[in-house]
């Protein structure tokens, strides 16, 4: 199995001198299974350069899994070049939106409305399939791979996806904030909320248990976090906690805060590691970087 990062930025793409090393594209992760099946996690701007590498080997069948439909996770989709070429197949998976009562097809049909894009959805040449997922629904890819999901904690429904292939595994959180109690200790509701929170956290940790590769939304430092509580993103410290609890082998921090320069990114990463000294059995903690590949 192989994972390659094509976009590691949160919220908005930030090309430029200060992000040359870690990259400025928004979230997109390429996963190749042992059978070379193609799975793409999220369709931020990083999907554009990824799609160029696919043109040499068409027809291409891509299984795209959308964590959630915030812009930074979908805005590259209309620029996934194989979509315009007959013979290619695109299977787009994602959650139903209970508020607008629309399935995952909305992600593309809305982006391709005439005022946003010159080509309409029915005019796309590739064969498109939409699979609206329920929680824990597992999807089989090729012979040996399954993708399952769990709802994470974000302002919109957000799936974390787990990929399993021949005993190898990867989990990607999409955007996720560690649960926190909305009541103060002593207030009615506090204990009730705490029980539900802990149960849910345990369910998530069990779901992730022992993955080889864990990719987590790590937008903020703990100093930045108080001003952004409730925005739906994690910190270095919350990601480290989850990685440890779940017994992951490698933990990639991603969804880097868009104003974070390369130098600052390494600084806050080093500070986080210093604050959380190594423990036996720790995952290897790594910064996700555009172009970074890992095979196992």
């Amino acid at each position, binding site marked *: 199995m192989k994972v390659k990062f094509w976009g590691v930025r949160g919220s908005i793409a930030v090309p430029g001198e200060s992000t040359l090393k870690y990259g400025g594209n928004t979230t997109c992760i390429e996963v190749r299974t042992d059978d070379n099946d193609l799975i793409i996690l999220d369709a931020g701007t990083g999907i554009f350069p990824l799609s160029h590498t696919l043109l040499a080997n068409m027809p291409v069948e891509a299984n795209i899994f959308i964590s959630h439909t915030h812009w930074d996770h979908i805005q590259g989709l209309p620029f996934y070049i194989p979509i315009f070429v007959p013979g290619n197949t695109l299977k787009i998976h994602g959650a*139903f*939106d*209970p*508020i*607008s*009562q*629309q399935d995952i097809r909305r992600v593309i049909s*809305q982006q391709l*409305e005439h*005022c946003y894009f010159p080509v309409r959805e029915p005019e796309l040449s590739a064969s498109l399939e939409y699979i609206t997922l*329920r*929680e*824990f*629904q597992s999807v089989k890819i090729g012979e040996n791979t399954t993708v399952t999901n769990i*709802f994470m*904690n*974000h*302002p*919109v*429904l*957000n799936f974390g996806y787990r990929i399993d292939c021949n005993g190898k595994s990867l989990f990607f959180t999409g955007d996720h904030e560690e*649960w926190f109690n*909305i*009541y103060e200790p002593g*207030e009615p*509701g506090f204990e*009730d*909320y705490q029980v*539900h*929170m802990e149960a*849910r956290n345990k*369910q998530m940790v069990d779901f992730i248990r022992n993955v080889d590769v864990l990719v987590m939304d790590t937008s903020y430092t703990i100093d930045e976090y108080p001003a952004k509580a*409730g925005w*739906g993103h994690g910190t270095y410290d919350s990601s480290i906690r989850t990685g440890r609890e779940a017994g992951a082998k490698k933990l990639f921090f991603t969804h880097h805060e868009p104003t974070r320069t390369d130098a600052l990114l390494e600084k806050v990463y080093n500070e986080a590691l210093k604050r959380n000294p190594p423990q036996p059995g720790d995952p290897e903690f790594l910064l996700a970087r555009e172009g970074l590949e890992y095979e196992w």
Partner: protein
Amino acid sequence: MTNNEYKKIVKAVDKMPAFPNSVHQILALTSDINCPPKKLLNVVHHDPVLTLEILKIVNSHYFGLSESVVSINQAAVFIGYNTIKNLALGVAAMGILPKGKHAGLNMTKFLHHALATASICRLFHRWSGGSEAEATSYFVAGLLHDVGKVVLAEHLPDVYEKAMTLSKSRNIALHLAEQMMLGMDHCDVGAMLAEKWSLPTDIVAAIGQHHEEQLTGVNSVRECVIAANTVAKKMALGDSGNPIIAPLPAEVESYFGRDIDALITALTPHKNELDDVRSFLQA
């Protein structure tokens, strides 16, 4: 209009339920972006009908949660506070708009139109420098501007269906067809209901006059409702059941200092958020 029909309409308005207090609170809380989650959850928690409706949606097959969610706190943990907040708004809005079968009206699209108008109306209020304290009134006015249609469709289904058919086949505005069939239109009926609900007079007037071609005086709520209603139709957000999009009255254009196209252009960056209820609150 026959005397009989007029009596029926008055009786229908009279029979409408009171404006629920929890709905009012939710509308107020959801228009404040800094509202602490526990405040809203508390309101929901104390309204068993609202709680049940929300839990019903959360436990529906769309979510496919592995265990059934039995409390509003648990629901907030499982699917996130923000989603609960938006569900609460949707359910609350649904709660104001009468339920049941409605001759000729597609209620899903109708609600979408009402919610879109509501949030555009509130946006216009904010753009014209209006205070946050009043924002909810603008939302409510937009939400309820067509409530008269629902009353008519519910209580005079046969006549109302004919009015809708007439409006479509002759391509005339729905309120004109209503006047031909009933001697009064959904603006009159909506205003009657708003009055019964003791809503502020400027909201009552906005509902009653939102199809007037010539406006007298200035009523900011009315101007915002008329502009929002027109924009929502032009942007095809939902369906009000009216095939005609009337031009913006001159008084409304001069109130905003922009014509309809300029208003739509200004809203275009908000198109996606207006498309669904979810982001109505994040604005």
